[in-house]
């Protein structure tokens, strides 16, 4: 039995967006991409711009379906994953 393809919308903000060079994209996740951390590993193999954006791994934050999560969070059936620097509003 093969898992159905998982399409996930990725969003990038602030300097993560600038380093990657786009603000959003839709990707099909391999089945071995289980956590947010796995997703970052997988993205880093796609090109140097991702490597640069995620160079400071512990600095980039993530939200899954618009909720802040830790790198160990499971992607599950997530439809939207966002990556961004620590927030600086207020």
């Amino acid at each position, binding site marked *: 039995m093969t898992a159905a393809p998982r399409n996930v919308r990725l*969003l990038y*903000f*602030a*300097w993560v967006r600038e380093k990657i060079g786009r603000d959003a994209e839709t990707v099909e996740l391999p089945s071995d991409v289980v956590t947010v951390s796995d997703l970052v590993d997988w993205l880093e193999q796609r090109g140097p711009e991702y490597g640069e954006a995620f160079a400071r791994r512990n600095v980039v934050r993530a*939200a899954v379906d*618009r*909720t*802040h999560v830790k790198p160990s969070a499971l992607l599950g059936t997530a439809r*939207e994953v*966002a990556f*961004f*620097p*620590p*927030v*600086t*509003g*207020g």
Partner: protein
Amino acid sequence: MAVCVQTDDFDVAAETEKLIGARTDIGAVVTFTGRVREGEGDKRITSMTLEHYPDMTEAEMSRIEAEAHARWPLQATTLIHRVGELRPGEQIVLVIAASAHRQAAFEAAAFLMDFLKTRAPFWKKEMLLNGDSAWVDARETDDNAAGRWG
């Protein structure tokens, strides 16, 4: 309870009036207004651009607001955050907390600001007088401030 993300400026007096009106059960109103400063030390900025994550921002602000109402006996709260390009002296953010007593109003307003600063998905980029631009770094003191609420 009201949460708003907008490019337009806000009027603190009008927002307070909207929140309180003729209510006679409110003894304490605390407002916090954040404003763009021209600089600090040698740095001089000409403007600041606020980016946000539209689909998440208001949801996160509403979560922060609900958390404040769960922690303190609040009669009413307002959270407004501006986005887009702002110049020095312009208003960025407004928090209003209204309660029967002042301690709840003060603590809730400080809490709301601490969590807006560390949870709401906004990012500031500064345009400097020398032509450079730079994303503002998150301040460790903001994380510490948010951490004190346990």
